[in-house]
Structure formats: structure tokens, C-alpha cells
């Protein structure tokens, strides 16, 4: 598994992308936000499945760190990506919440 052809920058990008998608899925199933997405296309999946998918994506990102021979380095990248992805989702939801009343008026 240690020699898949993924360049280091691609791997960093992939870790961030998977973390971001995972965090989006987890946010969409969170108690505070799930109602906002109930009628949206993505929620054809039920909440449990979506939450499972979120965790699966985060776990998949973690496993990808083993495709590099610098696993320690990429585990740190994974942790960082996870946090920044969560922060980004948080920020987007924060702005969404602020704009929502104005949009509905």
C-alpha cells in the first residue's frame, strides 16, 4: 500500500478534501442543522447513513496517510486538515445563519 502513485501535494489536497466532505456530512446530520437540509437533494440518504458516510470519509483520509513513506508527517497534516475543514464548515454556517433572515425577507 505504501507505493500508490500520489504526489505529496496531491495527498495533502486529498486529505483536506476528504476531511471537508466528511465534516459537511457530519454538519448536515447535526442536531442544530439537520432541519435545514431535510428537503434538500442530498438527504435522500437518511441521517444515520450520512453520519456514517462522514465518519467513513474522515477514516479514509486517515488511512490515506499510510500511502506515503512519511506517514508521521501526513498524520499531522490529517489532524490539521480535519480542524481547518471543521472550521471552514463552521464559518460557512455562521455566514449562512447571518444571511438567512435577510434572504427570507
Amino acid at each position, binding site marked *: 500500500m505504501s507505493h500508490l502513485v500520489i504526489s505529496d501535494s496531491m495527498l*495533502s489536497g486529498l486529505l483536506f478534501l476528504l476531511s471537508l466532505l466528511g465534516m459537511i456530512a457530519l*454538519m448536515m446530520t*447535526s442536531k442544530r*442543522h439537520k432541519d435545514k437540509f431535510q428537503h434538500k437533494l442530498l438527504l435522500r440518504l437518511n441521517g444515520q447513513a450520512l453520519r456514517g458516510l462522514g465518519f467513513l470519509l474522515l477514516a479514509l483520509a486517515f488511512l490515506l496517510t499510510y500511502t506515503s513513506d512519511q506517514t508521521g508527517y501526513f498524520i499531522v497534516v490529517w489532524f490539521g486538515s480535519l480542524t*481547518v475543514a471543521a472550521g471552514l*464548515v463552521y464559518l460557512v454556517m455562521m455566514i449562512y445563519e447571518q444571511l438567512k433572515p435577510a434572504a427570507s425577507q
Partner: protein
Amino acid sequence: MSDSAKNQTLSMTATQTKPKIKVKGYRLLMTDVHTWFGLLLGWLLFTIFLMGTVSYFNNELTVWMQPEIPAVSQQTSAATLPATSSSPLQNVTSTVDKPEPFGMAIKNLQATQANAKNWFITKGASSTSHDQRLHITVSNDKERQHYQFDTQTQTLYTPRDTAGGNFFYRMHFDLHYMSVIWARIIVGIASMMMLIAIIAGVIVHKKIFTDFFTFRWGKGQRSWLDAHNAFSVLPLPFHIMITFTGIITLVSLYMPWASKVSDIDTQQFFEEIYSYRPANATELQPAPMVDVTPLLANAQADWQKLNPHYAVTSVSINHPNTDHSMIIVDGKADRQISTIGVFRIYDGQTGETLKQSEPPPLAVTAHTVMIGLHAGRFSDYWLRWLYFLLGVAGCGMIATGLVLWTVKRRRQLFDKNKPYAGFWLVEKLNIATLAGLPLAMVGFFWLNRLLPLNMATRAKWEVDGFFIIWAGSFVLTLLMSSRLAWRVLLSLVTLSLLFTPLLNSLTTERGFFQSVLNRDVLFISFDVTCFILALLFAYLTYAATFKQTPSKQKVKSNARLGAQVGNQ
């Protein structure tokens, strides 16, 4: 009533009143621990955290603070630099097919500094290092010269006297104007208090998962708490890691008993370390030195058998061209988390290996991995920015926590214009630290550009200026009402950040547009970062000026804001 009846009545009364005595639950107790452990040294913690966060780019900041040294990508323009900052060397060949940078630097030193006491040549910090540009320190009995050497253009660059980004790095754990040991003990105590506050905070937070992505706008204290939670919970693994590894970094200072228990002879240990420094030898005889380049190639090849990412990072030569010459070669692996490297020591006359590094014990590896995780020097730019952003979140966590303390208690004040002494002090310290410290930091950059280049102890004045600005902001805070002090200081930070790129373009030849033309990524990034931070502080200024805690939380934020603006 008989005595027994009285006693019975008393005991019944006691039983009935017992439940009324409020015993603090575990969570409430932890709330107090979280509040006070976070607050008491909160201002120091904010300073430590902010300095540490900026220090992820301390080498880049040093480069920015030495604008007369062109970026490697600008090497072609080196010839046009003023004579004071560069001096093209003569008598050194410039036509080498595959220049080995260390070998070229040694050739240069042989030609110009043959009788020095020590030559120290390094690639510099990994984040800003480039094979083409080496950092050289030449030591003699009385003086030490630092300069950079471009192996391709054969140019020496002598930077201005500046404290550079290293000031922030040292301030992060050594503070300033005080004994280093005491500073580290104080920083250690603050870090331990922070770790306790973080753990207590996790216990206190009832809805850690429910509120994971939650921010409620315009709800006063609730909003501040949400912001504090966001800055704390989202990067929680980072906060725990950085605080714990920070303590571990200096653990031998906080727990010095380990070396005594394990019966380590510290004197012998230090004697061995110092034996590799150039001694004040009095009977040195001239003697030819072995060619260093093949030794470096051999050392690197041997190290790469262990790890293909190893490379030579520095070469130190004691008493070159004498019978006491000694060559010390250090190496590190790219992206290795552990800060421990490899070394090899050669006899300078014969090239014989005198000593070489052995694989370290597991405990040492564990310790150095923690130091590496803390310092993040193994990171490339992508990871370094992640570290930086997480550090900013840590600063946000402390800042929102400190502000939250006052927001929560302000509502309980009898007279909001005459708060009690404790509240007054916390509020003033909050302003002087959360707004005054960033102002002092930007002021530090301005001083780097504005102080005369030939000024005596220029670097010291940069640092003194930093503290003068910081102290000035505290005095300003004392003289003004808190609300006005927030506005004034935050406005000053915004304006100074906004004008930093302009100041840079007026005082150097590396303004924004010039940097774009030269693809000078570091200077472009600095200007863009200043602009983004200026926007952030502009928003904070706006919030401190126009936003107030709502009296009725259900009032729509837009309507409230409009009314407040209208009232002013």
C-alpha cells in the same frame, strides 16, 4: 419542651434544611477551575500563544526584516544592489559544472578568512533555506561576522542589524528583560494552568457535540460563549497537543530530578559537548586541511542508507588550516518530525572519522518528536499555514475567554460606569493585551523600516520600541474609558496594518508591485496577510464601535444595529 424533644426537633430541622445547603457539583467546580485557571495568567498565555503562532513564520519574518538581501529568485538583480549591502567577490571561480554549495562556501572562506577560529556554514532554517544561499558565521577571538553567501552569483550579503522574527520566537518562552530560567518557569506554570483549564473546559462543556457547528449571532454573552467554544472545541486536539508538548519541551527544567535519579554526570556531559567548540588554543601550527567536499558526500550517502531524505544541513570547522582543525557535519531528514539529527566529526588534517551519531534511545526520540510537533519545523508551507491557523484559533480561544469573563459580569454590575476594582483591572488588561500587543507587533515591523540603518544597537531599539508601544497602549487604556480605548487601539492596529505594505514600498525596493514582478512570494504573502489582518481588525473596530449587547435578545440584529447607529 424536654431536652430530648428539643434535640429531636433540632435534628429534624437540620435534616430538613440540609438539602437547602448548596453543595457545588463536580461540573460547577470544574467551571470555577476553568474560569480562574484561564483568567489568572490569561494575558500571559495570550502573549505566549500569539508569539508562538507568529513564530511558525519567524524565519520568513527575519527575511522580510532584511529587505536588502534579495530573494534567490531575484539573484539576477544582485549586481544592481548598493555597494554597502553586497560586495561581489573576486578570485573565486564562478564556472562550476555542478556546484556543491558547501564546497563553494569553503573555497570562499579559504580565500578570505583562512585564519579564523571557526567557520560555521548552514543552509539556514529549512523553511527559508535554499542550496544556493548559505548562511555563514566566521568567529575570531574578538569578533563574529554573520553574512549570507550566494554560491551562484558569488555575492556576500550583510543584513541590517535587526532582531528579526527570532525576537517573537524567544519571547514565546524566554519573555524579555528578565532571567531566562525564571521566564521559562513562569511560562511553564502558565502552560500547566492552561492544560488544566482546557481539560476542565472539556468537562464543563455540556453540549460539546450538539453545539459543534453552532454559532448564534447577536445574543450577547451566548454569542461570546459560542465563539469561545468554536475556537476551543474545533482545534481541541491541537490545543492539547501544543500545550502538552510545550511543557515537555522544557520538562528537564520543571522536573530536574530525572538526571539525578539516573546518576548522569552532567559535568562530564557538558564537558564533552564543549570539547567540540573551538578552544582558545595557543599553540596552533599551520597545516593543510583535507578536501571537505568528499567527506560531506560520504556522510550524506551513509545517512541516506538509513533514510533517503537525509541531507547535510550545516558544516562547522574549528581552527581551519591548523593542526587542530576539526570538521563537524550535521544532517537532518526532510519532513522528519523529531528534531534530532545526525552528525559526524572528522579530523581536519587527515579526514579520519573521530565520532559519529548513534541511534538515540527511545525516550530521547519520543522527547524530540514532541518538541518537533510543537515547533513544526518539519512542515512545508502547507502544513505551516495549518499550524499558523490553529495557533490563531488558540489566540481566539484565549481572547474570547478573557472577553467573556467581562461580558458575563458586566450585566451583574450595580453601576456599569463604576465597576469594582477586579472588573476594572481585567477589562483594562484585556484591552492592553488583546489590542495593545498586536499594535506593538506591527510597531516592531515599522521600527525595522524606520530606524536609521547605521544606528547603534539598532536591533535592541526595535525590541525596546516594541515594549514602549505596548506600555503606551496600556497607559492609553488607563486614560480613556474602556469603550473608547477599544476603539482607538483597534483602529490604530487596523491603520498600521493597512499602511505596512505602503511603508514597505516607500522604504525598500521590494514593494508589492515590484514583488509581483519579481515573483517574490514571501513579500507578496506578507503584504496580503497584512491586508487580511487589517480587514479583520477593521471588523473588530466596527463591532467595538457600533455593536452593543442587546437588552432583549429576541430583537433582530439588523434592527438593533440600525437603532444603535441612529442613536449615535
